């Protein structure tokens, strides 16, 4: 073909799928080493392929589309297995295959002693398949395969410890909450089919661009419905409650799926569909508001958690809120940049937390940790890098990406309040992250009080606190390096950088000629200045330092303070500790009434009462038919033949009479 290179994009998702099939079908009988090899190769080759694509990226005409096969063709509707590569997909591919590969490697060590090792790796490969499909799709329906598929992988992996009721509950909860979001996504697709006749990105976006007069209206409806989908997948208000429970899964899963990749799918989708959101001030504004609100509330909930993974889970919800905020002020590049840096430092935080948990034979409660920095030094130092990164200290990656979002919010008309809440949340973030840091690594060693560790020791599989094996540490070190230097990709102009990352993505998010809705909250061209950016950077660094200082005070200098404060502000503490009772609220307002209504009104009154009651005559006749039926059951084959003949006779007799009757009518 004349110059258009064939990149075989379909290979990217297919290889992990093959890995899944091999391990899923035969893994039980294969030796552990072979299971490992299959799983690792199935993610390593896509990583290499992505690297080769990166190498020739500048020579490609973008977006680069490769069509493989027709998936659905019904009436006027068509959807294909069509893959697309552009700058946004390229970024996502690097994150997914890169972080994905590292976490596969880490898992070799972390899962070494688990039952169902093969099952774990099969599911992990399955996840890679769906996640790669999600970002490579060229139409919304194919994206939806990945979208629901990652949900499936997440369901399977959260419930990996199948005998634990809480794990099974959490898996189901995640799937159902995601389904609520998918309900919105599906309706958005129906609307798109109605209005555009297709779900292909290229055609949908081209039609919108060709009609500058389409503002709000059905595009708002589509945007809001897509947003509902995004809140499910990316754990935003009102559907975030599944993510903290998802921590029941193995820790590397939390790192890969519930921090670095899957939960960012909502952000990716909003960015991908920005042409739609740009036309609706309401939909995009809501993205910003939901993001900001989620960032804030999740951060407050993180403050009062004692389980190390749950702190990180709420932190993830909160950081995803920042990404939404970035997208919501039409700074999609900034949102995606935070997605990338978050993938580095949050994956690192989870993996380091996993290393801590591994060292403590499964203990996750920070109240039973403390003083670990000398015992597991590499874990400590890598985690420290991540804590400083997420808290937003320059020049680490989290600082750069978060600040870009806050800056964009600040310079957007009407965005100051969003900026302020975001800034305050940044302070909270620093506080709860340093709280975690101090409780885990500093102060008194409280591991002696841990029942879990005592239990493990009793049963002989306990071991002294020890550093993790190298297969786990090397991914930590690589991610730590990325968390530290990742910010250079998008170093802001205000601090002398060239914002390479945002410029790289600019062709995808280019709003020129897009007829953006004038009411959208977003920075007009030329707003802001390098000077302002510098001031805001200083303000947010000071805020982060403030958070650190308070954490230092409360959890290092004067460890009796938290207890005193919790006593003094009992109400507030209980509210945060119980996460605002949102789960309980959903249970009482939705689940319980639905179950009550179904059980008593539908099942008992209507189905048993009315519908069976209507068949009561039939029931009563059944009693009378009893003897007849008994004869039916006689078991002699001749009698059945007789019954058949009888039935046929009956039909014929009726026929005859009706016939003659109808002929007489003539």
């Amino acid at each position: 073909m004349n110059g258009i290179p064939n990149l075989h994009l379909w290979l990217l998702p297919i290889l992990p799928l093959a890995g899944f099939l091999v391990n899923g079908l035969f893994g039980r009988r294969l030796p552990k080493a072979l299971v490992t090899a299959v799983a690792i190769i199935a993610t390593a080759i896509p990583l290499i392929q992505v690297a080769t694509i990166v190498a020739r990226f500048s020579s490609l005409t973008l977006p680069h589309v490769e069509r493989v096969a027709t998936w659905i063709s019904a009436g006027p509707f068509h959807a294909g297995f069509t893959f697309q590569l552009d700058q946004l997909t390229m970024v996502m591919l690097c994150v997914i295959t890169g972080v994905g590969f590292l976490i596969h490697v880490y898992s070799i060590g972390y899962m070494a002693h688990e039952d169902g090792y093969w099952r774990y790796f099969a599911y992990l490969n399955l996840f890679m398949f769906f996640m790669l499909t999600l970002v490579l799709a060229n139409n919304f329906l194919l994206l939806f395969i990945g979208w629901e598929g990652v949900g499936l992988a997440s369901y399977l992996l959260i419930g990996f410890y199948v005998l634990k009721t809480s794990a099974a509950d959490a898996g189901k909860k995640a799937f159902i909450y995601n389904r609520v979001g998918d309900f919105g996504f599906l309706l958005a697709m129906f609307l798109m089919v109605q209005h555009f006749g297709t779900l292909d990105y290229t055609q949908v976006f081209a039609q919108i661009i060709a009609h500058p007069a389409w503002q709000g209206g059905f595009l708002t409806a589509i945007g809001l419905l897509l947003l509902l989908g995004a809140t499910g997948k990316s754990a935003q208000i009102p559907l975030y409650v599944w993510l903290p429970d998802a921590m029941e899964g193995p820790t590397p899963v939390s790192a890969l799926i519930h921090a670095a990749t899957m939960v960012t799918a909502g952000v990716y989708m909003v960015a991908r569909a920005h042409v739609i959101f740009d036309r609706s001030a309401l939909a995009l504004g809501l993205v910003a508001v939901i993001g900001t609100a989620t960032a804030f509330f999740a951060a407050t909930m993180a403050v009062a958690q004692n389980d190390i993974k749950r702190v990180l889970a709420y932190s993830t919800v909160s950081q995803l809120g920042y990404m939404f905020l970035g997208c919501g002020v039409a700074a999609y590049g900034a949102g995606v940049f935070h997605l990338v840096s978050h993938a580095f430092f949050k994956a690192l935080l989870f993996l380091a937390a996993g290393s801590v948990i591994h060292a403590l034979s499964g203990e996750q409660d920070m109240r039973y940790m403390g003083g670990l920095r000398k015992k597991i030094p590499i874990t400590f130092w890598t985690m420290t890098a991540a804590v400083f990164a997420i808290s937003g200290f320059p020049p680490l990656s989290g600082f750069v990406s978060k600040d870009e979002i806050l800056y964009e919010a600040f310079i957007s008309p009407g965005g100051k309040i969003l900026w302020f809440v975001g800034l305050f949340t940044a302070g909270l973030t620093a506080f709860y992250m340093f709280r975690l840091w101090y409780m885990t690594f500093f102060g008194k060693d409280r591991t002696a009080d841990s029942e879990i560790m005592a239990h493990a020791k009793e049963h002989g599989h306990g071991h002294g606190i020890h550093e993790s094996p190298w297969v786990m540490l090397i991914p930590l070190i690589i991610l730590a390096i990325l968390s530290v230097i990742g910010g250079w990709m998008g170093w802001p102009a205000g601090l002398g950088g060239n914002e390479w990352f945002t410029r790289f993505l600019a062709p995808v998010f280019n709003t020129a000629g897009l007829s953006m809705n004038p009411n959208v909250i977003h920075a007009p061209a030329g707003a802001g200045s390098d000077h302002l950016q510098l001031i805001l950077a200083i303000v947010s660094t000071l805020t982060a330092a403030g958070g650190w200082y308070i954490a230092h005070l409360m959890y290092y200098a004067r460890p009796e303070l938290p207890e005193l404060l919790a006593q003094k502000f009992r109400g507030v503490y209980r509210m945060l500790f119980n996460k605002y009772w949102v789960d309980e609220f959903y249970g009482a307002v939705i689940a319980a009434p639905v179950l009550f209504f179904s059980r008593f009104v539908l099942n008992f009154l209507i189905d048993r009462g009315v519908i069976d009651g209507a068949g009561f005559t039939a029931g009563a006749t059944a009693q009378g038919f009893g003897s007849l039926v008994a004869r039916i059951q006689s078991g002699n084959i001749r009698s059945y033949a007789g019954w058949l003949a009888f039935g046929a006779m009956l039909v014929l007799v009726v026929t005859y009479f009706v016939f003659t009757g109808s002929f007489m009518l003539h």
Partner: protein
Amino acid sequence: MLNGSILSLITFLPLAGAIILALLPRRGRIIQWWALLVTLATFVLTLHLPAHFEYGHSGFQFVINAPWIAHPAIRYHLGIDGLSMWLVVLTGFLAPIGVLVSWKAIENRTKEFYFLFLIQQTAMLGVFVSLDLFLYYAFWELTLVPMAILIAMFGRTRGPQAAVKFFLYAFIPSALLLVAILWLYAETGTFEFTQLQSAIAAGGLGPQALFWAALVFLVAFAVKVPVFPLHGWLADGLTEAPTAMSMVIAGKLGLYSLIRFNLGLFPQQAREFAPWMIALAVIGLIYGALVALVQRDMKRLVAYSILSQLSFCTLGIFCFSITGLDGAVYQIINEGVSGGALLVLLGILYERYGTFEISEYGGLSKRLPHMATLYVITTLSLIGLPILNGFVGEFLVLSGSFVGHHGWVVAATLGVILSASYMLWFIQRVFYGPPSSLVENRPTADVNFREFVTLWPMVLLMVVMGVASPFWIRGIEDGVRPLANPPMTQPVAQIHGRSLPAQASILKGRQ
């Protein structure tokens, strides 16, 4: 040459097999093997149809049309189009599976069982291929009898009651159906489907009378689907029926007939009924899902889930869009495959533990990992996970019905949340968590070879139908195109006027 007689062969092979079976000795597993052989042969024959089907036109193929009775003019007229073709193949596919799943489950009165089972096959195949209304009715009626007897004979505890209920529910509307068919004959002098079609289209019949005739057809078929609120027989019938029978008790016969006759013969009246049917479909969809949510018995849970899933088909049928109809027919096949697989799975679980009570189970996945896997894949197919078959059907039905019925489709889409809720909750209670005392105390073997052979083709089909839908939809669309409202040639967006240079260039670029 074979094309002329293939449908007769397919239809009557099971009957012939049944007659020979009656003569076989009751020794060893001869009867089972024979039934398996007959059903497999029938299935292989049905594959002739898609292999030699001429795509692209909507008429009937493989037609055989011979006079049978001169007066009244009843003809032996068989034929299929894209609509019925895959249903014939589906029936053929499910038959050997029905035999395999009954292999151990039916130990007593095997001869009676397989005899009636094979007759049931002939009856069902006959329903799909008959183009003479009288012949059709004979087969239709014949489907009821073996089913009712088998429910009565092999029911768990309340078999006879369930059988009578089933029979009365099905028989009374069917008797009325016969009256309506005869009235049509009296008016037009023919039982021939195509002739009736043109006679009715020509407008010779009184609209009032046609309305009632169409209503009788509708009710008879709606009971058989079943459409809410005519499902009173379903839960009991499905619960009591042996697995092989429960797989075919609901769905395809009624839905096929709705499409063939209510849309094919009475298009005008079908459109008059449509608002009601759409409402009932959506109510049934939500209702079935909610009631399934609170069932304690897994077979009843599946019964209500089937009520819910089949309502998708009804919705798609009565919105008259090509996409929706494609989806509806696809969903009929899905329900046969995935719903059938779930019933098979319930059957093999029952064989091991002797109860359908959900609360008796727990933590099975550690004991029976293969079975757990099969259960999970099947339920995922039923709740419409993309890349499995259910999603294609659901998506086409919902998106095809969306235009003009926004409110109803929004409500129907809630079904995706509810189906995930009841199915995953069911899976969780049976397979996850700590093992129950029943599971603890009764160690059993995981899925055995015979069960693997039964289930893997179905699982494979779920995946293949999920990714390669055009293979089926091509033919289905030939069948349903004449029944649909003429499609809007252009999507709404393009009708707003304006040429689309950007899009045009993109389209060109893609070629």
